[in-house]
């Protein structure tokens, strides 16, 4: 049964239509249903989202219901805490071939979430042993690898078309060179595949420069075809995940540029942000506006520039070096991932998790592209002459990098996004 998610994306690809998807999770069952209904009724090709709350994310299944009982709103839907029947009712008449629903959760130990999502009749979710551990959790990486292996086998064993999207193309959401994002998606895809999951998607977070992102997305597709050839896969783009522009014009332009990037790069699906993102957790109507904005952009589909080709070649070469270095460590992908972080062959810039070296750093170069500062122990060639280099990054420099995109869009300097 089901498999709605992959079929819906495949149909949309044939129709040359970008599937759009909001971030959405409400604590209250009726509010959650109303939110999903509003997305389903919007008239664009959309996938529904049930994002779980942050208490459930860390394995606390009681506080969320206590806070709901006190009349407070949660930042997500407590899928494990609400009764199974209540969630089935919540989805009834909405979830179907024309409106797939994905569970988004952010947990490093996802067994309970996976069990419950299958119990309520769903089969699509996301995350990964690295991408939901190092950035978001205190759990040792080796434990997350074991938990995810178990969860993948559970999903593969209890559903016919269980789907997992690797969050490896997002990691900390920003300030990560694209080659590491691409490599991590491929590696988590190999991990899912090893544990029986055959329906995958690979994420990629919009960076700081459109031409670099287009090159990187081409590299991701090339490597996915090569390393995940016997699976069903598609690519999902995330609208910029860092600090969002504060002006409505700037925020709208950034959302439109991300939709254009998704179309130009042949992405099948896109997760949108909203105009109010800089201020608060978005309302349903703000989500609807963002979905419409993203669904409306026609894209440009211009021929790749020489600069795009250069970014493609660079990302492809670096990502391949990273993937091969890791896969060659062990026949078991999970063991290889743990060993790679131990040796510093994988190293996520700025990540505070104890299992991450944090010797590698990321900078924004003169072109506005994401680049390596320090390369730490990554198996990459030494930086060429004239590369930005790391040095000691102060709080002001970091602050500027965190605000780079928001500032550019807030001051109307986004017109050159088509470079």
């Amino acid at each position, binding site marked *: 049964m089901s498999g709605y998610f992959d079929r819906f994306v495949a149909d949309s690809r044939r129709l040359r239509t970008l599937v759009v998807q909001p971030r959405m999770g409400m604590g209250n069952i009726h509010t959650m249903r109303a939110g999903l209904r509003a997305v389903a009724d919007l008239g664009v090709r959309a996938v529904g989202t049930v994002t779980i709350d*942050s208490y459930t994310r*860390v394995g606390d299944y009681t506080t969320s219901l206590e806070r709901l009982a006190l009349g407070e*709103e949660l930042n997500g839907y407590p899928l494990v805490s609400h009764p199974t029947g209540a969630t089935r009712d919540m989805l009834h008449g909405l979830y179907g071939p024309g409106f797939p629903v994905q569970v988004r959760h952010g947990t490093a130990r996802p067994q309970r979430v996976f069990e419950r999502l299958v119990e309520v009749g769903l089969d699509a979710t996301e995350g990964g042993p690295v991408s939901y551990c190092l950035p978001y*959790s*205190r759990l040792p990486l080796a434990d997350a690898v074991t938990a995810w292996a178990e969860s993948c086998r559970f999903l593969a064993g209890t559903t016919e078309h269980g789907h997992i999207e690797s969050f490896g193309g997002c990691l*900390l959401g920003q300030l990560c060179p694209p080659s590491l994002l691409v490599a991590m998606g491929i590696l988590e895809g190999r991990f899912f595949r090893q544990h029986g999951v055959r329906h995958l998607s690979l994420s990629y977070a919009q960076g700081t420069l459109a031409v670099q992102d287009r090159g990187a997305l081409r590299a991701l597709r090339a490597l996915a075809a090569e390393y995940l050839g016997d699976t069903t896969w598609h690519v999902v783009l995330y609208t910029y995940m860092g600090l969002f522009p504060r002006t409505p014009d700037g925020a709208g332009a950034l959302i439109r540029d991300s939709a254009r990037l998704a179309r130009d790069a042949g992405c099948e699906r896109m997760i949108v942000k909203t105009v109010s993102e800089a201020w608060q957790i978005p309302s349903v109507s703000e989500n609807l506006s963002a979905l419409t904005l993203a669904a409306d952009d026609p894209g440009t589909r211009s021929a790749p520039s020489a600069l795009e080709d250069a970014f493609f070649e660079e990302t492809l070469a670096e990502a391949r070096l990273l993937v091969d270095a890791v896969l060659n460590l062990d026949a078991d992908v999970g063991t290889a991932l743990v060993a790679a972080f131990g040796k510093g062959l994988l190293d996520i810039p700025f990540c505070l*998790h104890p299992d991450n070296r944090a010797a590698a750093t990321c900078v924004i170069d003169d072109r506005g592209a994401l680049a390596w500062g320090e390369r730490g122990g990554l198996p990459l060639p030494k930086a060429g002459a004239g590369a930005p280099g790391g040095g000691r990054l102060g*709080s002001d420099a*970091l602050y500027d990098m965190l605000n780079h995109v928001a500032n550019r869009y807030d001051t109307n300097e986004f017109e050159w996004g088509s470079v």
Partner: protein
Amino acid sequence: MSTSFRCLVSTVESDSHIWNLVYLQKLLEENGATVRNLGSCTPVDLVVRAVRESRPELLVVSSVNGHGHHGARVLLSALQENGLEVPCVVGGKLTTTESDNDRVRRDLLAHGYTDVFLGEDAIPRFRDFLTSGRSEGFARWQADAAVVPPWDATVSAAAGVH
């Protein structure tokens, strides 16, 4: 005046964001702090243990996921129950809407936080706090009184009566 001070950086257990913590560590180090950064999703017990072990001169709690108000209360209560007294400040995005800021700040100051940094000018005010705290001691900082919006006046007047 001490030129360096020990500072513990944490968030609340439900908050997985890290950029606020990475940024604050750099900012604190530049202002003379030796920082122990506990990272994201810090369980209350871990913070209590870390305060007991490393005896920081300042605890900085930062949260941006919209649930920090509750978590910050729970954290400070736990420190108080364990008899641990340390100047502590909290800031970020503590509820799901900005309009709660005045109410939240008032509540957390009353709960015992040395100061609460929310909204547009949070970082400049935090810098002022650091400058003053380094020379005068963090415990001597007097936070500005929390703003009471007119529509909350009856509530606070009633609270004042009790």
